[in-house]
């Protein structure tokens, strides 16, 4: 009886397989498509850093290069379309029993880097890892190990421009996956500078670090750029919130590749395509103003972020610094304009709510604004809910379009 029902269930699939076999018998057997979809979760964050607001997380598998066993799955890695490269907290790797080999320069010095994220800096060595996400993988990816255990050299004085945010509690995640429109985290500016920028350093075993230039191939690199296939971009696909004022969690997907498989086409019509400049920005004007700002679509920012001195910032509660409109929800708009060949113009209307009316302790909010004092316009996480966001990586073609670009 039971066998019968199993057979009944399998029969359509078996018939289908027979059909495919039959079709393929005329030519070469096509390899099965690589699984290119990774789950994205928006929730309150890792246990060591609860209370995250609009943080999208993924789980990334990293292995010591060449090893099948020295691997760990790191959860709650922040999905960030506003940076480039994978950075992981050292104590989290230690807990997963993985020690990634540090990268050294031609003189044998350990390459370390100092990366600014507004709230402070991450500091630690560049190391190599085999990186796997869904069925996609890349070997020997230069990543940054955020040195929260101070196992390596201490940061030089000109790196500490505020506060170090190397640990899980300080960073709000176990790491960050930078999968924006560019390939390397510094690019040409760190290759040929007459005076090396305070970004990459060569460190002696005694812990003395000196700024130095680093070739592109050795810089921390967007792992998607290094995938064997599906290496031309990503799609971030998050649903609309059930309650705009606060959902406790949201599940969506990160799809690798653009127009490489049946699940990742660039739509032929109805798509707004915004070319980006060499810094990864397009431009935007806000609410009819004439100031042309650098703009980006950034899953690493939890709110719409822009400067509007007419909207007061919240002065109390758990949303201090975000906007608290006098008459919420306040309707505003911005006009995006692509740079270069893909110079679409797109007006986007959005609303800023009073976060003091949000569901307490929820993790995802649709109408959150912030960014007072910023000269840039940042389409943060609220922009992602209910949209497919396409990120096209520089130098790579997606159909007839070449990155860097953003599309929605």
């Amino acid at each position, binding site marked *: 009886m039971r066998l019968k029902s199993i057979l009944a269930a399998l029969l359509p699939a078996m018939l289908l397989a027979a059909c495919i076999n039959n079709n393929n018998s005329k030519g070469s057997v096509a390899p099965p498509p690589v699984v290119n979809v990774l789950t994205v979760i928006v929730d309150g964050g890792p246990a060591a850093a609860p*209370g995250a*607001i609009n943080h999208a997380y993924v789980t990334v598998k990293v292995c010591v290069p060449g090893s099948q066993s020295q691997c760990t799955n790191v959860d709650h890695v922040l999905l*960030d379309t*506003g*940076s*480039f490269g994978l950075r992981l907290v050292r104590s989290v790797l230690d807990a997963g029993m993985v020690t990634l080999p540090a990268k050294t320069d031609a003189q044998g010095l350990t390459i370390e880097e100092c*990366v*600014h*994220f*507004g*709230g*402070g800096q991450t500091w630690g060595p560049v190391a190599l890892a085999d990186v796997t996400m869904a069925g996609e993988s890349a070997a020997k990816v230069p990543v940054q190990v955020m040195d929260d255990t101070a196992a390596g050299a201490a940061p030089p*004085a*000109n790196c*500490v*421009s*505020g*506060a170090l*945010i190397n640990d899980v509690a*300080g*960073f*709000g*995640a176990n790491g*960050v996956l*930078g999968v*924006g429109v*560019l390939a390397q*985290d*510094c*690019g040409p*500016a*760190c290759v040929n*500078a*007459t*005076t090396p*920028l*305070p*970004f990459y350093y060569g460190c002696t075993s005694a812990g003395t670090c000196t700024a130095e230039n680093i070739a592109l191939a050795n810089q921390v690199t967007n792992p998607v750029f290094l995938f064997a296939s599906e290496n031309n971009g990503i799609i971030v696909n998050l649903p609309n919130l059930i309650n705009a004022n606060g959902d406790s969690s949201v599940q969506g997907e990160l799809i690798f590749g653009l127009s490489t498989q049946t699940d990742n086409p660039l739509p032929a019509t109805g798509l707004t395509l915004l070319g980006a400049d*060499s*810094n*990864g*920005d397009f431009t935007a004007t806000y609410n009819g103003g004439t100031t042309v700002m*650098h703009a*980006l679509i*950034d899953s*690493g*920012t939890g709110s719409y*972020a822009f400067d509007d001195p007419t909207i007061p*910032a919240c002065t109390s509660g758990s949303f*201090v*610094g975000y906007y608290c409109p006098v008459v919420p929800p306040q309707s505003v708009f911005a006009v995006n304009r692509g740079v270069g060949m893909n110079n679409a113009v797109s007006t986007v209307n959005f609303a800023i709510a009073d976060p003091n009316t949000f569901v307490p302790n929820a993790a995802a909010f649709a109408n959150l604004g*912030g*960014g*007072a*004092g*910023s*000269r*840039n316009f*940042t389409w*943060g996480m609220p922009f992602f809910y209910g949209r497919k966001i396409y990120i096209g990586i520089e130098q790579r073609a997606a159909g007839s379009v070449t990155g860097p670009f953003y599309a929605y």
Partner: protein
Amino acid sequence: MHRLALKALLILVLGTNPLCASRVQAALGGDAASVLADSAEMHGIMQSTPLQQYDIHEITAASDMRVSEFLNREGIVFAVTWSGPVVPDLQRLLGAHFATYSRALAALQRPGLHRSLRIASDGLIVEFAGHLRAYNGRAYLPALVPSGIPTADIR
């Protein structure tokens, strides 16, 4: 030559010709001497623009790193701005006010990744914006900004 006299002459020469002082970085709250004294870090070229109520000294360095210092008529640096592919050494740029900035960052309710951040603490305003490969920001002391100058002019 007497060492003190040499120093005085150097200050005189450099002080009257800012273009000579090609390696310059000043500190918020510092004076004109600090604009000239704090050298080497950026290896930049300085250009000065005198305005009615204040002077702007703009330093351009490798890879399009830019730092501007705003000096009021009392000769005090009341604002600094920056832009470039990396963040300049804020410890040097903010001078004595760096401790205030550090304390405010450490006290943030939500530390971590920010693409824009405004700190207002103890008479200091710091506005940070940008992302990898393109940062900008400014820091100023509202009490020392010449009267009638809108803060939008500090760019």
